[in-house]
């Protein structure tokens, strides 16, 4: 797979990890049929991510470019302006729009596989270091709370999850997995109860 780009390799790796886990629960079927539901769900997740990023880029392009010597005021205004544009464009957005019903169990299983492994406890500890727990009500489209530091996401966890474009990041607040817009600093979607206790 050396000729494949990193992102494609990661998607294939994610499918490879998930497939045997789900295969046991599925009815007898051909190998092709066993692979497809997971691959399809992850592909669908990627489509939703791509759709969001396309919107993000389109809206960001309507804002004036930041000059190289941008002041903090200009940077802050641009970040908030982008957030406002996205919030308007996704006015009806709700939890599960991107973490859709089909992809949620797969993402849970990907994370479960990591946290159930030998390094699971220390990975959880790393994420939970300054994780305040579920102290705020999370809102899709809402600004990531300024008072809460972003969680560390260990490399082993990032490697297990489907890779994201640079506009988006995975983060945790409490046991909730968040999809964070890294430019607009808003919560794009979230999944509750993801981080095992």
């Amino acid at each position, binding site marked *: 797979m050396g000729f494949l780009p*990193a992102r494609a390799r990661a998607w294939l790796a994610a499918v490879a990890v998930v497939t045997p886990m789900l295969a046991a629960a599925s009815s007898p079927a051909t190998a092709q049929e066993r692979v497809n539901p997971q691959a399809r769900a992850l592909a669908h997740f990627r489509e939703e991510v791509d759709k969001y990023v396309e919107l993000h880029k389109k809206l960001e392009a309507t804002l004036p470019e930041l000059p190289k010597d941008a002041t*903090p005021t200009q940077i*802050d205004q641009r970040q908030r302006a982008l957030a406002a544009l996205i919030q308007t464009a996704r006015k009806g957005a709700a939890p599960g729009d991107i973490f859709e019903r089909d992809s949620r169990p797969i993402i849970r299983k990907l994370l479960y596989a990591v946290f159930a492994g030998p390094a699971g406890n220390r990975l959880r500890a790393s994420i939970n270091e300054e994780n305040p727990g579920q102290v705020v009500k999370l809102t899709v489209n809402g600004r990531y709370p*300024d008072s809460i*530091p972003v969680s*560390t996401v*260990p*490399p*082993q966890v*990032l490697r297990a999850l489907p890779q994201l474009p640079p506009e988006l990041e995975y983060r945790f607040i409490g046991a909730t997995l968040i999809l964070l817009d890294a430019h607009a600093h808003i919560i794009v979607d979230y999944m509750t109860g993801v981080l095992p206790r």
Partner: protein
Amino acid sequence: MLITRRAAALPLVLLLCSAAFVSALGAVQQAPAAQPAVALPNADGSLKFAVLGDFGNGNRQQYELAAVMAKVHASFPYEVVITVGDNIYGSERPQDMKRKFEDPYKPLLDAGVKFYASLGNHDDRVQSRYKLFNMEGRTYYTFKAPRQDVRFFALESDYPTPAQLEWLQREMANAGERWKIPYFHHPLYSSGKRHGSHSDLRDVLEPIFLKNGVTAVFAGHDHFYERTRPQQGMTHFVVGSGGQLRRGNIDRKSPVLAVGFDTDQAFLVAEIQDDRLTFNALSRTGAVVDSGVIERRKEPRP
């Protein structure tokens, strides 16, 4: 005067006064109590830089340490400050950038000192667009030092994506400089009771550092100053004491601890000349709380 410029054969000595030094040493684990601080050569043509971390809270202690940094700069003209993250705590509105960064370090900024930031878990990613942090929109990046054969690598340790790790491997392998110095927020080795070593990160970064002949690593996150005993031949510094401080947080029984200082704010100044890195860690009183010389590791491991 904190530092005396070397004149003729006189070595540079950073000690403010012996009383302050002795007082500071009282809190230093395994510090060479009977030894004087190792003088920075302050040589022409050397690379002089400072390391600062976990600083931007806008409190009095941050300002006082910043004033010491400015005094040191007057005699030891470092050109570069690398930050090991948590550059701004809490709100990051424009007025915060001023109060928590631009005002305290104004003398340094006015003198042309360039800050090259890395991001911590308290930092909004948008800081990468802030001109005075010299990140040019990137959350991880590399740059060649203005002097000597040195290249720095600023990493985003709270979000080490596979893409970032591939980038690091590639950039370190391609870098022709003799010194390759990584810096980032989460320490691979630390004696902190609160956070401590990040072994998950160590598992992926340490092999890359070993392979590429890294000698010294700078991090923060734990709110104190620490220098480790060499780990796999590399010395790790924790400089998370630029404004925040977690008093008494160093585990004195930690096997990795060489020197630790957790009773006051502190920063580090360092100088590279050829294959030697000389360093002094200074507290808010200007006392040298650690010092030494590290020779560049010459044999990268396969």
